[in-house]
């Protein structure tokens, strides 16, 4: 029946053109396969478990999305994650006030992002190098400020951010993710700042010659990235009940991978932030699946590395067509 064949062909080309859709498709297939492999997988609890586990990576990926859409890259998010966790922990120890602690974390993330942006704009360093430097600096500061010792003894209210459930079932981090992604989606789509973010990634010089002031946009982009690393750090600290100076290492790999899996171009100028969320879900599903199947955690690094390479390879071949 030719009509049906044409229909499937059309669907297929649509899916391959839209990497984000094809990734959603892949995510669903993974869930179905895992459900067959393990009776534990497709339970409501485990699905929420995945959204809970993916919250941290998804939030870092949200900030990283802005950077990658603008044609840059932020390697420092894993270290800024630890830095803002420790700053928040110290704030908490000093004042015993949760809000002070949250503001301190957020401030730490924003400050690190500001430094990244300033180095790129003022010192004219490529983002790769500026954020590579910050990766070392922020990690070092986290270790220095905490003297290398994890902070324990978080109040119950703080831990609610990471462990609480609304209506007894939906995890608080999942709700935070949905709200923040929606807000960021509208910022990218419906504000000048969002428009300039894509424009910068597509052609920075033409953007400048359109009378756009580049430095504030650049600062904003990297501050958003830092802020999201901080929010992610708060959630993980609350979940684990501790702030660790060594936490977040390797998270930049997972976050960058999530954005690329979502189909963003490594050259910038295009991408969808919800696609990055799907990317984060895929990364987490793979980890979760490997856990359920009893595969050693060490293999997960290898798998994550391979995912990044193949996600970008898929993007390149799409571009070559």
């Amino acid at each position: 029946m030719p009509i049906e064949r044409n229909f499937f062909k059309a669907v297929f080309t649509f899916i391959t053109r839209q990497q984000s859709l094809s990734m959603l498709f892949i995510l669903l297939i993974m869930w179905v396969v895992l459900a067959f492999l393990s009776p534990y997988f497709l339970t409501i609890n485990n699905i929420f478990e995945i959204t809970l586990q993916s919250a941290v990576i998804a939030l870092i990926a949200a900030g990283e999305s802005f950077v990658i859409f603008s044609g840059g890259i932020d390697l420092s998010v894993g270290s800024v994650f630890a830095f803002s966790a420790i700053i928040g922990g110290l704030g908490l120890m000093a004042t015993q006030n949760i809000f002070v602690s949250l503001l301190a974390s957020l401030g730490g993330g924003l400050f690190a992002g500001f430094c990244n942006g300033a180095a790129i704009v003022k010192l004219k360093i490529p983002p790769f190098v500026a954020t590579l430097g910050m990766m070392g600096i922020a990690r070092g500061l986290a270790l220095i400020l905490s003297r290398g010792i994890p902070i324990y003894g978080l109040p119950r209210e703080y831990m609610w951010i990471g462990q609480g459930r609304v209506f007894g079932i939906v995890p608080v981090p999942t709700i935070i993710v949905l709200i923040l992604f929606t807000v960021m989606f509208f910022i990218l789509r419906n504000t000048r700042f969002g428009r300039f973010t894509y424009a910068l990634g597509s052609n920075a010089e033409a953007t400048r010659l359109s009378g756009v002031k580049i430095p504030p946009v650049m600062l904003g982009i990297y501050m958003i990235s830092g802020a999201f690393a901080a929010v992610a750090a708060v959630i993980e600290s609350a979940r684990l009940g501790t702030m660790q100076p060594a936490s977040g290492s390797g998270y930049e790999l997972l976050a960058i991978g999530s954005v690329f899996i979502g189909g963003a171009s490594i050259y910038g100028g295009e991408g969808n932030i919800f696609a990055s969320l799907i990317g984060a879900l895929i990364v987490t599903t793979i980890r979760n699946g490997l856990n359920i199947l009893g595969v050693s955690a060490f293999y997960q690094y290898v798998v994550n590395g391979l995912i990044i390479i193949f996600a970008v390879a898929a993007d390149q071949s799409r571009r070559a067509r």
Partner: protein
Amino acid sequence: MSYLEMQGIIKSFSGVRVLNEVNFSLNRGEVVALLGQNGAGKSTLIKILSGYYNKDGGKILINGEEVHFHAPSDSLARGIRVIYQELELFPELSVAENIFMGDLPTKRFAGIPIRQKEEIEHRAQELLELLGEQIDPAIPVKKLSVSEKQVVEIARALAKKANIIVMDEPTATLSQKEVEKLFGIIRKLREQDVGIIYITHRLEEVFTISNRVVVLRDGKNAGFFDTQDTSWQELVQAMIGRSLEELYPRRTSTLREDRIMLRVDNLDIPGLLEKTSFELHEGEILGIFGLVGSGINELALGLFGALPIRGKIEMNGQTISIHSPAMAKNLGFGLIPADRKQEGIIPELSVMHNITMASLNNYKKRGFLRRADEKTCVCEWVDKLKIRLHSIDQPIKSLSGGNQQKVVLARWLATQSKILIASEPTQGVDVGTRVDIYNIFDNLAKNGLGIIVLSSDLPEVLALSDNILVLEGGNIVGRFTKGEADEQTILYLAMGGKEKVAN
């Protein structure tokens, strides 16, 4: 049958045919001029001949035998050599080493190649003498003038036993004297039985040096001529597909003598531009003519705040300072940059977003952009400028060069610019769009805008401008009003000819 035959060559880029069954032939000992406007397909044809692009259809025959070029090395092996405008020499190496680069004659000592300095210098000397040149083969190439470097490139082609040499606008950066010398060399090459494809924009050179002329237009053959039997008129007609009179608008000046919009006094761009002064009136089109490298692009960028400038600028009688494009925009300037790809379009963004990039403040309500408002404005300009597209949401990179240029123009019209700086506005733009752009400029001037057209296209500058400045080497070397400007004098001045600057 000729020595080289290209038959029915077809080439497309991302679905757009840039060469449509193009034929071309060349005999040994013959100079064929390849003519056409920017975007006509000349360089694509040459890149297929040099093996840089693969053709989608057609045949290439050499000596009656079909050849297939998959890489530049295949074409080189067949004795085809292209000399590009940006010469491809190694500045630190000697003249002789450059000439023989790729197959330096060597002796081996214990398996290690040893440099044969004297021998290659001797052989280089012979080749240079063949071309009638006195250049010391031992000195490094970076010490040579542009025209001497060109000679080295030609000698290099001869050393490779080239039968066909392609020269891509070889005179673009040469002085009149050097051009004469180059023609002498071309005649010697002809005697050596070398076939030459000569690409140029300058018609007088076509008549001086070529035997035949092949004209391309919009990727198709637009005429084959014997140089002796053709005329300027005929060639121009073939190139643009219509006569000159139809191409340019008949403008009646709308310049308002009493309203000076812009007064530029002793503008300096360190190292690029010196002591430039001029005035722009309401309703005026000011043409600034200069050849490539004369500083016209830098002047455009400087006025728009994209390059650091020194000097005094007055707008409507008030002194202003322009330190950034953002400031220039807020003052009412708009810029159509010379390099559309690098500086004009934002390729991944949609046509709509490209048009509204400079005027987003107009569509904002409580901090958020309103798509409906944006769309209304965009549709208006798409209609007015006759921009051809499927949808305003398609990425701008999928439009043709001419339509992209109209989008860049629309970007500034949407911001209600008062002063438009247009740098090479019709470069790489098809003839139809060119006519549209000229008419748009004419209309804008009627509505009181001040327009500065900086261009290396002299007929364009002559036809559009109320006043004309000539720029050469970063200096203004001539000032004319519409009536008194003649083509020859302007070109002479632009090429570095000396004359007392008329004020």
